[in-house]
């Protein structure tokens, strides 16, 4: 089956720093989403981005479907950005396959 790998697995930042999270997938996909799981376990939708680039405030994402990767950029990080970031890909069955996750800790 398809493999979805994220890097780095862990990231520690000081407030104000920028970061790039990567998601690699091993096969063609229909869709790709990025989620933030906050410390209470809630999954928050960040981006629905099967291809191209999108921006939302301090966050932006780029997916290059032909090369099978997606990037999530976080600028001027804040302590509230802490949590786990997941990418998830969708094949032709509406089922999401989640990546391995990146655990982000932002310190003041």
């Amino acid at each position, binding site marked *: 089956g398809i493999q979805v790998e994220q890097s780095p697995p862990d990231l520690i930042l000081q407030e104000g720093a920028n970061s790039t999270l990567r998601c690699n997938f091993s096969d063609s996909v229909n869709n790709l989403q990025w*989620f933030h799981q906050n410390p209470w376990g809630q*999954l928050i*939708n960040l981006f629905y981005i099967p291809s191209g680039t999108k921006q939302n405030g301090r966050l932006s994402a780029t997916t290059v479907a032909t090369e099978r990767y997606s990037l999530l950029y976080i600028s001027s990080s804040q302590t509230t950005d802490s949590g786990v970031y*997941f990418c*998830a890909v969708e094949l032709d069955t*509406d*089922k*999401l*396959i*989640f990546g391995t996750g990146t655990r982000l800790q932002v310190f003041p």
Partner: protein
Amino acid sequence: SAVISQKPSRDICQRGTSLTIQCQVDSQVTMMFWYRQQPGQSLTLIATANQGSEATYESGFVIDKFPISRPNLTFSTLTVSNMSPEDSSIYLCSVEPRNEQFFGPGTRLTVL
């Protein structure tokens, strides 16, 4: 988007018992999905629930252990049966009203 609620939000159960988790969505959807997230791990799809038909289970999950009901287009339940400590996880339901999936707040289950 979609607004999804789950009950209970958390529970502590004894091994050998069963727990039924409810998922309610604020709009009619064709498919509802149930995921499991074991401690420190990513999310894994348990099954897809369609209204009016049997749920479709992923490899490694069986109906006897995780029976699912889908009585209408806004509601579903997942039962975790004959629980063991290995079933301690967060259980989440999700829906995909238009291409993008949205998740409920999850049910945090601890089995002693």
